[in-house]
């Protein structure tokens, strides 16, 4: 799923090409966290999800998004937020960081650190199953 003011997401059964194209898109608009769409996807899924969020934290609907993330993490979904430094959203970022059960990974230098941090976190979940 990619999001800006709106979002584009792929359904579970969507072809790989579509999923990869969605991840390649950029909108350069405002930042509205797509809580309802994530809610829809998690509710359609059997079992807990591993939710990877890559963002600078400048969510304009943060008052709605954080309680939502807290709620679904309490349901057993694992949420990791890669918080990229650079935006001027200190109050929103503090709100995200204060939220229990959300795993926050601060990314100070995205060029140097982001890929390694994402690899490290995803491998904790998927390494035993990788072929």
């Amino acid at each position, binding site marked *: *799923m*990619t*999001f*800006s*003011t709106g979002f584009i*997401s*792929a*359904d*579970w059964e*969507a072809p*790989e090409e579509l*999923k*990869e*194209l*969605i*991840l*390649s*898109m*950029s*909108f*350069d*608009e*405002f*930042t509205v966290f797509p809580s309802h769409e*994530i809610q829809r*996807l*998690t509710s359609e*899924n059997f*079992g*807990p*999800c*591993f*939710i*990877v*969020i*890559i*963002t*600078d934290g*400048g969510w304009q609907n943060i008052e709605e998004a954080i309680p939502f993330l807290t709620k679904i993490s309490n349901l057993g979904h*694992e949420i990791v937020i*890669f918080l*990229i430094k*650079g*935006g001027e959203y200190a109050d929103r970022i503090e709100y995200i960081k204060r939220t229990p059960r959300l795993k926050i990974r601060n990314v100070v230098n*995205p*060029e140097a650190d*982001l*890929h390694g*941090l*994402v*690899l490290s976190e*995803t*491998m904790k*979940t*998927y*390494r*035993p*199953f*990788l*072929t």
Partner: protein
Amino acid sequence: MNEILWKRYWFKARAQRAIIEYLAESRRRRPVWSVMRYPDEWYIEDEIEDLDVETSLDEGPLIPEVTTLKWIKEPTPYGQSFSSGFVPSTITVLDVSSSMHEVHNEAAVAAFIAYLSARRSGETPRL
């Protein structure tokens, strides 16, 4: 749209390379399965269980140490093992707003890393 198509391949290639490098570096030898590499002569002092009767009969009548064959086994290079358990589904959520413009390429590759890791594990990722 054309640009997105090219970016897709670029992001994906970078993510795949990162995953492969990570796996190659972290790989270590474990107790392994053996694989049968090549046939060799079976001698009287060898274990009877090692005798491959079917392959030996291809050589002619069973004559010990003349037509009898066994398979030489070697461990697989890095080891293989079964993993069982619940593989969680992944939802990859990528912020592509204007404030992310400067770091968009790195963020997209990172999103592909999460997506492809899940896919390689056998899980069907959602976006």
